[in-house]
C-alpha cells in the first residue's frame, strides 16, 4: 500500500501547490490584516501605567519599526477608533531613535531585534513581533502562525519589565513562555 498512499498523497500535494501558488501575496496581506487587528486589540487588553499618557487626550500610538508589512490594513483597522478616549495614531519608525512616544511597537522581521529590544529596555512599550527569537530577545508578544491560525506567545517577564499589565483574558488565549527557552 505504500506506493498507492504515496501516489494519492503526492497528488493532493500537487493540487494544493497548484491552488496556493497564485494566492501567496493575498495570503500575506490577509495575515497581516489579522495581525493589524490584533495590534489594535492589544490596546484593549493591556494596561499601561498612567504616566504613559500626558493627558486624556494624548494620542495612543501604535508604531511600526522597520518594514511595514501591514500596508494600509492597520489604518483601516484603527479608523475611527479610540482607546479609553485616547485617539489612535500610527507611527512608522525607521530607526529606533525615532521612537519617542509609542505604546505598542511592532518590530518587523527586518530589524535586529536584539539591539532594538535591548535599547527599549525600561521603556513602557508593548513590543510585538513575529520573528522566532523575538521573545528570547526580550520581546513581550510574538505572533505565531500555526496551521493557518495566528497564536500569541507572551513573555510575562518582558511585560513586567515594561511595567505593563496584561489582561488575564488575553493571557488565557496566549502561550506563556520563558524568554530563555525561545
Amino acid at each position, binding site marked *: 500500500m505504500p506506493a498507492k498512499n504515496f501516489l494519492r498523497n503526492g497528488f493532493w500535494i500537487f493540487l494544493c501547490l497548484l491552488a496556493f501558488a497564485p494566492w501567496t501575496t493575498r495570503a500575506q496581506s490577509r495575515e497581516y490584516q489579522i495581525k493589524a487587528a490584533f495590534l489594535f486589540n492589544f490596546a484593549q487588553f493591556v494596561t499601561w501605567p498612567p504616566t504613559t499618557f500626558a493627558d486624556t487626550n494624548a494620542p495612543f500610538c501604535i508604531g511600526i519599526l522597520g518594514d511595514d508589512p501591514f500596508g494600509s490594513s492597520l489604518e483601516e483597522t484603527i479608523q475611527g477608533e479610540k482607546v479609553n478616549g485616547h485617539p489612535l495614531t500610527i507611527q512608522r519608525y525607521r530607526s529606533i531613535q525615532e521612537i519617542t512616544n509609542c505604546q505598542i511597537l511592532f518590530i518587523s522581521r527586518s530589524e535586529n531585534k536584539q539591539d532594538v529590544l535591548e535599547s527599549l529596555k525600561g521603556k513602557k512599550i508593548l513590543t510585538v513581533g513575529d520573528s522566532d527569537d523575538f521573545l528570547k530577545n526580550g520581546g513581550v508578544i510574538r505572533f505565531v502562525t500555526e496551521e493557518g491560525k495566528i497564536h500569541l506567545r507572551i513573555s510575562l517577564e518582558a511585560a513586567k519589565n515594561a511595567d505593563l499589565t496584561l*489582561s488575564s483574558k488575553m493571557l*488565557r*488565549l496566549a502561550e506563556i513562555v520563558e524568554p530563555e527557552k525561545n
Partner: protein
Amino acid sequence: MSFKNIPIRKKLMAVNLLISVTVLFLTCAAFTTYEIITLRKGMVQGYTTRAQIIAANSTASLAFQNESDAADVLNAMKTDPRIMAACIFDNTGKIFAKFPTNTPDSFFPASSGKSGYQDDHLEIFCPVVQGGRTLGTVYLQSNLSALTDLYRAYAGLAAMIIASSILVAYLLSRTLQKQISVPILALAQTAQAISNRRDFSIRAIKIGDDETGLLTDSFNQLLASIEERDKVLQTVNESLRAEISERKRAEDALARERNLLRTMFDVLPDYIYLKDEQSRFVLCNNRRAEDNATSASVDNLVGKTDADFFPPEEAARFRADELKVLGGTPLIDKEETLVRPDGTRQVILTTKLPFRDSSGKIVGLVGYGRDITERKQAETKLQAQLARLELLNRITRAISERLDLRSIFQVVIGTVEERLPLDFSSVCLYEQNTNSLTVAGIGVRSETIATELGLTKDTPVDIDENGLSRCVHGQLVYEPDISDSKFPFPQRLARVGLRSLVFAPLLVESRVFGILISARRQPHSFSSGECEFLRQLSEHVALAAHQAQLYDALQEAYEDLRQTQQAVMQQERLKALGQMASGIAHDINNAISPVALYTESLLEKEPGLSPRARDYLTTIQHAIEDVSHTVARMREFYRQRETQLTLAPVRLNELVKQVIDLSRARWSDMPQQRGVFIKMETHLAPELPVTLGVESEIREALVNLVFNAVDAMPEGGTLTLRTKISENAPHFVQVEVSDTGVGMDEDTRRRCLEPFFTTKGERGTGLGLAMVYGIVRRHSADIEIESAIGKGTTMRLNFPVPATQITETGKSMAAFTVPTRLRLLIVDDDPLLIKSLRDTLESDGHFIITASGGQDGIDAFRKAKERNEPFTAVITDLGMPYVDGRHVASAVKSISPSTPVILLTGWGQRLVAEGDVPPHVDRVLNKPPKLRELREALAQCLHSNES
C-alpha cells in the same frame, strides 16, 4: 337538601369554611401570580446576567478570534440543564461559537433578535462589548422547566396550605360556632320539647346577654303568655269535656232508667195504665194487657176501652168514675169487685188520677189497680186465726195462774166452750195401768148433754177400738160425722145429737195423760184452723198440768233441801267448834303432862309414902285421866270418822264401868246440885263374850245414851245399865241404857235417830243419837228403842259376836326389859314438861340432856355425836315454834339413822288415826305421857333396833 334547610350549625360552619377558603384561595392566587411574575423577571434577569458573564468572558476570544476558547466558555452552560442552546455571534452576525457544539446553525435566530419569552422558551441576547466596542452577541435559549417546576411547587404548597387551613378553619368554626348555635339550638330544643309535650311551663335557659339572650327572654315571655292562655284553654276544655261526659252519662242514665222503668213497669204485678179523654187505653203494662185480652199484648189493648172487655153496666160505671177523674177529682183506693168471665170474684183496689200535659190541662188519666183478692181472703183467715190465738192466749194466761189440775181443766173447758164455741166439751184423765179414762171436767153448757150421756165427773170411760184408742196413742182425732159411727163412744155422743167430734191428747214427754173432747151438733163443723187450735190448746193444757205436778214435786224437794242445808250449816258450826276444842285440848294435855308424870312417878317410886298420900295421889291420877279423856272427847267433835275401823277386842263390861265413871258428873253431881237424885244400877252379865270394835267409839256412844237418859229424867229416877247375851240371837251381846224418864211418843221415837232432831230445844244439837246410830251402824250392830210416855225409854245396842272367840293378846309390860343408863335427848319448848320428863326419867336411872327448841335439840344431838357420846334415843315434842318435831326427827335420822325418835304430842291420837305419822318417827305418844308408855316405847324401839 338545599342550603336553607341544613341545620344552623352546619350552615355556620359552611359559611365560615367558604369564607376562609375563598380568602385563602384569592390570597394564594395573588401570591402565586406575583411570585410567577417575579420569577419570570428573575429568570430573564438571571439568564441575562449569565449571558453578560459569557459575554465578558468571551471578549478576548472574539477579539483574538479564538473559537475554541469561546466554545469552552459556552460549554460552561452544561451545568444548567435548562439551557437548551447558546451561541456567540461575532460582530458580523456570524456564529462564532455554539453550545452544544452539534447544534445546527439554523437552530439559532439572527443575532439582532430581542430578549424575551417565546412560545416555550426564553431567549436572551446580550452584546459583547470591549472598551466601548461591540465585538459580538451572546445568545441563550432556556426552556421553562424552572417555571413549570415552580408552578407545580406553588400549586402543591397552595393546596397544602388551603387543605390545612380548611382543616383548622373547620375545627375552629366547629368550636366557635357553638357560641352562636348552642343558645339557638337550646332555644330550638326547648321549643321542640314544648311542642312535643305540650307543656308550656317549660322555660328556655338564658345563655348570655347577647341577642340570643334577648331572644330567649322574649321567647320565655311568649311562653308565659302561651302557658297562661293554654291554662285558660285547658280549663275551658276540661269543663267542656266534663260537660260532654256528664251529658253522655246523663243520656246513658236516662236510657237505662227508661229501660229500668219499663221493666219495672212490666214486672209489677199491678195494673198500670194510661187512658185518654175518651177512656181509650194509651199505655199499659204487661199485666194489664195480659189480663184483659185473651191473646193480649200491649199493642192490641191500646185504643180500646173498658167496654170492649167488661159487661155494659160495669163499663158504664168505670166510665162514670173516669169522667169524674177527668174532671179533676182523683179516685183513691177504691175497692172494686169484679166478676170475671169464669165466675170468680176479683177484688181490685183502684186509684185513678188525672193526667195533665205540661200546661196543666187534663188530657187523660193514670190508672193503678192492685189485685187484692188474695189479701182479702188472707185477711179474713187472719182475723179468725187472730181470734183463736187471742183465745189461746187468754186460756194459757188463765191456766198459768192456776196450779191445781181441776181448776185448770175447768177454766179450759169453760172458755173453749163459750168462745169457740162448742156444744160439748170435756176433759178425761187417762190411766195407763187400767187403760181407762176418767172424766175430770165437763163444760157448764155441756152439763145437760153430759147428764143425758151419763157422763159425770169421775165417771170411767172405756177406750174404744177406734177414736179414743188412737187418741191415747198421741194422735189428734177428728171425726167429721159420727152419725153412723160403729164405735160405742161416738155412738153415745151421736145419740144425743152431736155430729162432729175432735179428740185432742194431753201429752207430756210423749206420754198421754188425758184427752180433751170437743163436739158440735153440726157435722163437718171443725175447720183445719180449729183442729190446729185444739191441738195447740191441748199442748198448753198438758204443759200446765204437768207444771202443776212438777210444782208439787218441787215444793217437796225444796223442803228436803232446806233441811239438808240446815244440817250442813250445823256441821260447819260444829267443825269450827271442834277445831277450837282441839286447840284447847292440846294446851290442856301439855299442861297436865307434868302432873301425870309426877303422880305416876311418886306412886311408883316414892318410898315411905303414907297411905293417905297414896290415896290422894291415886285420886289425882284418876282425875288427870278423866281430864285427859274429857279432852279426848272434845276432840271427837272435830274428828272426821274414818270409814275403816281398826277393830280391837272390846270388853263391854269394863266399858260400862268406865262409862259410869266418866259420866258420873252428869248423873250424880249435877242433878244433886239441883236437888235431884238419879239412881244408877248396873246389871252386868258375867262371862260376856268379847266383841270386836273401837273401844273409844262404843264408850262414847254409851256416854251419849247415859246423858240422854239423864236428860230424860229431870225429876230424877233410875238409870240402869245392863249387859247380856241376846236371848233370841245368841251371837249378839246387848248393852242396854234404861231410864224411868218422860219417854217418847211414837213420832219422836221414829225420828229420834235423824240428825238435828232434838227435843231439847236450844240445849241440844240433835246430833247425839245420830252419832250413836252412826257408830252402831259402823260396828255392824243395831239399835232398839223401847219407849212409853211417862214410863221411860230403853235403848238397846246389839253387837255381833265374832265366830271365833278372840283371846286377848295384850302385851304385858314384862315382855320388855327396859334398859337403864340410857342417854336420852328431850326436846320440848315447854320448860315444865321438860323438867317433869327429866325428873321422872332420871329417877329411872337414865342420863338426860334437854333442849328447849327444835334447833337446839338438833345442835345438841350433833355435838353429842361429834363428842362420840351419842344419844340412845330422842324424845321430842311435835309442835314447836320455828323448827318442829318433824324437822328434829328428820335431822336426827339424817345424822344417825338408827337412833329411835319418839314423838310426844298433844295431837297424837289424831296423827295416828289419820295415818299422819311423820317419817323418821319411830313412835308417837300422846300427852299427857305416861311413864309406863314411855318405858314401853323405849323398850320396843331399842328392842327392834337390837333385833
